[in-house]
């Protein structure tokens, strides 16, 4: 499936060379918007994309509905999807593409978008248009709980990490993982989810809030 890429700034999903970028074809009708302004750029060009085989808009913490709207009674199948390549903070992006669909996706367009990512060696998981998609929605409360239990001295950080690695086969414990990838990034994601969902489980843990404040002071 041929697609063109519209770049709108630095992309968290594709910060470096990747087969997905190399396979792009500037003359293709399908369109992938990358970068921090991806949604805004699509809004300016949406009239030209109505008949595209598919459109994929890179998302950060926002929902696809912020860019394409979400009328409750929409009947026409949509060829527009959101996506994000999952990465934790400063870590390299993983192979996972979370492909975001709204209520009534055009199945042919969805299959084409999926194929475009899979042909570049990426793994696609389809999800609805909800804050945090799949992975952030699931792991952030867990990471918050781990940070809080560390404060409460349930066990040492290394014992907690070891128990979760050995007991559940996780490749890395949550405390070591968050420290490696940047606690301040955990704060940014959880704060966005807390505002979107209003669920206390997402309220940033104390250690993450401190890390964010410290990072901001350093950057100032």
């Amino acid at each position, binding site marked *: 499936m041929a697609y063109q890429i519209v770049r709108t700034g630095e992309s968290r999903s594709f910060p470096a060379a990747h087969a997905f970028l190399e396979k792009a074809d500037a003359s293709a009708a399908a369109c992938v918007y990358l970068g921090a302004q991806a949604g805004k750029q699509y809004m300016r060009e949406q009239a030209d994309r109505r008949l595209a085989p598919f459109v994929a808009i890179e998302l950060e913490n926002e929902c696809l509905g912020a860019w394409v709207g979400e009328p409750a009674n929409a009947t026409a199948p949509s060829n527009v999807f959101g996506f994000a390549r*999952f990465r934790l903070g400063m870590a390299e992006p*993983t*192979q*996972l593409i*979370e492909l975001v669909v709204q209520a009534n996706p055009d199945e042919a367009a969805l299959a084409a978008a999926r194929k475009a990512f899979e042909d570049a060696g990426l*793994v696609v*998981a*389809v*999800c*609805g248009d*909800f804050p945090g*998609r*799949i*992975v952030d*929605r*699931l*792991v952030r*409360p*867990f990471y918050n*709980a*781990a940070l809080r*239990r560390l404060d409460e001295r*349930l*066990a040492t950080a290394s*014992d*907690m990490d*070891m*128990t*979760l690695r*050995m*007991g*559940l*086969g*996780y*490749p*890395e414990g949550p405390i070591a993982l968050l420290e490696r990838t940047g606690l301040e990034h955990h704060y940014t994601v959880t704060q966005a989810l807390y505002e979107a969902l209003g669920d206390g*489980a997402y309220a940033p843990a104390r250690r993450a809030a401190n890390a964010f404040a410290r990072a901001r002071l350093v950057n100032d």
Partner: protein
Amino acid sequence: MTAIKTVGVAGSGTMGSGIAIVAARAGFVTRVYDTREDALQRARAQTEAFLKKSAERGKIAADAVPEIMGRWHGTTQLEDLADCDIVIEAVFEDLKVKHDLFGKLNEVCGAQTLFASNTSTIAITEIAGGSGRPDRFVGMHFCLPAQLMKLIEMSPGMQTTEATFAAAWAFALALGQKPVKTQDTPGFILNYFLIPFNNDAIRLVEQGVASPADIDKAIKTALGYPMGPLELLDLIGMDTQRLLCEAMHDLTHEPRATCPPLVRRMIAAGKLGKKSGEGFHVYGDNKMYGA
């Protein structure tokens, strides 16, 4: 305290069967108690199949299979656990059921027998309080699947003596396991995190965020976990998850520990997980996990 030679396992479900494999494989005479003969027969058949597969994969010698099975003895008579040096309980997460069991075991077993609970949520001190021997009682929480996972969360209750804990710790090492000492708090370390995490995954399915297959795929790909949360729940079983939730929520009042309604509906529909052939995924057999 006398060295542990004979091990009793009360309960032949997923956890009890796994613990019995660990004990028999490590050279201990292992007596597996269950109230139902059919459950014991199934556990024995699954154990033998698991060990044969382990031999095929070169993890144990082929002639070790009959030797290990020779140490595995099933029984429906609690009195057959009388000569055990330690009895590990692996029954439902229900305090009354556990108290009833340990009360009877206290009548049957000698004073030297240590009692251990594989509970994953209930306080060791509470279970020990109804055992008749709270000083010789310890928490030994094996991880699922017990026959493959090395970790044991070891928790002393408030009345556990140092000698009891030391003997149980030495036994865990003799099993070839890796013991970790945890506080006697609800869920210890693993389930404190795992039960709410799994419930959150169920709620994503309930809310239509993604399909079970997509959720499992996303978590495995993004985080490198060996199993997705819904695959793991199928292994745990919906009936067990409900009991875990009820025990955990009763102790902590943590909202994320509340049993999701979908779990109750799946139980009603007979979709218990791998053991019933269908849970969040569909299965073609009920063989034990791994080898």
